[in-house]
């Protein structure tokens, strides 16, 4: 499935400055694997040593925080928009 991935400012050094890149995969896990293959090193910024999504990063498929769905196993249908966003406090 072809999806688009929005890249936060702090990871744009990996994508040559691009704010949005295209991705591939039926689940978030697959999309992140492909992303890391295309932009080596970016995967380890999003996932920790044990392969889980880092504590202070929020990942969304469409409008939904993946922690409300199936985490890394969340489905990423064709055309889905994936956002990777650092956690923010204070409101």
């Amino acid at each position, binding site marked *: 499935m072809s999806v688009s991935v*929005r*890249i*936060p*400012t*702090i990871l*744009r050094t990996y994508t040559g400055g691009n*704010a949005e890149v295209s991705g591939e995969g039926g689940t978030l896990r697959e999309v992140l694997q492909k992303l890391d293959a295309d932009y080596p090193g970016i995967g380890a*910024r*999003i996932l*920790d040593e044990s392969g889980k999504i*880092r*504590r*202070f*990063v*929020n990942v*969304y498929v469409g*409008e939904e*925080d993946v*922690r*409300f769905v199936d985490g890394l196993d969340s489905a990423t249908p064709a055309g889905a928009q994936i*956002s990777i*966003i*650092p*956690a*923010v*406090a*204070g*409101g």
Partner: protein
Amino acid sequence: MSLDFGPAVALSCRECGARYDLGPSFACLECFGPLEVAYSFGSVTREDIASGPANIWRYRSLLPVPVDVTSKQNMNPGWTKLVKADNLGKVLGLRDLHVKDDSGNPTHSFKDRVVAIAVEAARNFGFHTLSCSSTGNLAGAVTAAAARAGLEACVFIPADLEQAKIAMARVFGGKLVGIEGTYDEVNRFCSELIGDPLGDKWGFVNVNLRPYYAEGSKTLAYEIAEQLGWELPDQIIIPVASGSQLTKIDKGFKELISLGLVEDKPYKIFAAQAAGCSPVSTAFKAGHDVVQPVKPDTIAKSLAIGNPADGPYVLDIARRTGGAVEDVTDAEVVSAIKLLASTEGIFAETAGGVTVGVLKKLVETAQLDPSLTTVVLNTGDGLKTLDAIAEDASPTAVIRPSLDAFRAAV
């Protein structure tokens, strides 16, 4: 551009310790951990502080602001009352209870403290627009501070907030954008706006200026200690939305100890949430160190953050200090608002109701020691959340102006 952040020397990652130059950045490039301000403090004495102005700038030597901050146009928040709450203490069975009443700030919530620091950061970075994602109080604090500082303002809120908060955020000018969604969705939108050319030169006080902004909450810790005669309280109850305020009050207490401004002693930090949005309380009670987000449903809209970024730190601090995280129902919030008002003459917004309600629950469940010095925060003004007490918002009787009518009515 030469930056002047006073005693602040760097940003450091709370998770992995990586250090960065002072700049408008908020997340670690290595691990996404939150960045916070690191300092090199000079010598700071109680006398220096006491000779300062009666606002947060008396602590300027402990904050990321230029030394001459007092000569700039700002809202000068802080130095709010610490009310000795003997009446409420008697009802709850507490010997030495104090209410730190932050409804006395310029826009009637503690948010003026954090925004004041963010304004200095925005000036330092040459930003022209002040912005935020807000559960309501922050929006008003930002539009007011921007007006006074001569900056543009554009703030974002969930569209269904209390009318009074919307009006306050609007009256100071600037743009007020209601988003059809929850606070967490507003937050996400703002995070994306920051990475977009549209948001260039914008200082989002709680996003790209967050490390500076958050330091403003330390002034609550300093004031409480100074107002207690340079002593830390034994127990403190703090409301939690994102958890930033609680985290920084703890940081403030630790700084006072390490600078020798107060005697080192143990203190317990208790966190308060509304049952309809209690992800941190749920994690605390389950013994977890991760916070699973929730979709909020509570009258305490200022605390309705379902995905609290500093939640894990709140858990750490409550556990480290021997405190706890508790939550109360909306009905308990309303009765706590009335209890505080009818005992101490302090009219709290729903966040204060949550905090006082949790205080009551902590006493009833013996999680709090009633013989010790206890401080409870009221972070906002009840006039902003009138709907919460709508049932009581009419006269007890309406009569003709006659003694007979009054006799009949009483």
